């Protein structure tokens, strides 16, 4: 049994629309960041920097708790 042509066409049409729907929440998120001026990824990077300065082996016991 073969796939009907009308079904095939509907699948292709809907698949293209789906690509747009997949991207939609990501696009809306960045649009919100753009409007509100938020940059949450910078916050994360700053946090990372802080953690790095704490864990570097620059203490008297060379970063070990032993």
């Amino acid at each position, binding site marked *: *049994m*073969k*796939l009907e042509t009308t*079904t095939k066409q*509907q*699948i292709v049409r*809907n*698949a293209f*629309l*789906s690509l747009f*729907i*997949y991207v*939609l*929440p*990501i696009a*809306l*998120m960045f649009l*919100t960041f753009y409007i509100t001026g938020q940059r*949450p*990824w910078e*916050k*994360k990077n700053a946090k990372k920097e802080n953690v790095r300065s704490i864990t570097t082996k620059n203490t008297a016991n060379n970063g070990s708790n032993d």
Partner: protein
Amino acid sequence: MEATIEFFKKIVDNLNGFGFPFLVFFIGVLEFSFGLYKGKWPKNERWVDIACFTLPRLIIQPAIAYYSLHFLPYIFGDFKNVFSWVPFFWGFAIIAVADDLTQYWYHRLHHQIPWLWRFHRTHHSASYMGMAMASRQNAIYTLFFSQIYLTAALVYLGLGIPAIAVRIIKSTITTLAHSSIPWDKPFYKYKILHPIAWVLERFISTPATHHAHHAATTDDGVGYYKGNFGNMFFLWDIIFGTALISRQYPKAYGISHYEGDSWYSQLLWPLFKSNVEGSELAADGPVVRVDIDKHQLAATAASGYKNPPVLTPELTVVQSSYSNN
């Protein structure tokens, strides 16, 4: 503060691990207590349901564990948690769309592409709705459940907490949509609730819309196995024109020509074939078998599947069953 967040994280993690089986068990007990199966749980079907609920977990869980612990680190390497900065709300929206739209397509293609139908047939062969059949799937269908792998990848990239929240909500909606408890009925009965019903039935899967998808008949104004593919969101069916909303429940469920294939063939086809002659799961069976007439179907339901009507030219062919989910 961090200890409190950790505490709630643990609760969510536990709900994620034990929540679904508990929900299924709890609703299942309610269904049996109220006699909702009406004696329609034959021995063969009982074995299919139990085998499909238990055995795939032994294959699927290790497969997902391997994929998450070995494959994803190999592919994405340093990108672990790279998107952990994404706010919860947006993470939730991204995962909800990615997971559920992918499942919509996976499900829809198994109905619309003939050679895929037999991998999904097991989920539709039950002549009843409820917790007993909610997990009834062919193991290969479950193993390649595409959205599981997509969601696991998004979790690896840092969307773990939103993914768990989506999973809890999704499991609840899909479980209740399969339930034989028509929780949506009051929304159609009382006029004051009609506006809520209008939104609800277009947005998420309800027993009425999902039961229509499991109907033994189609195009009769109630049953519609050619559509209503949505799992958590029904919105996809509305957008893609595959929806039917009738606010009614079908009289008969399942596949019109079903004759009780063995549990192992339903769980592991094509590795094991059915010995029911003419079955879609039999070694020499058709890829897709035509439906029998709905009037004959009523007679079949009355006599049980051991005495199916013989498919003869004078029987009206209603639909090709591969659209039957």
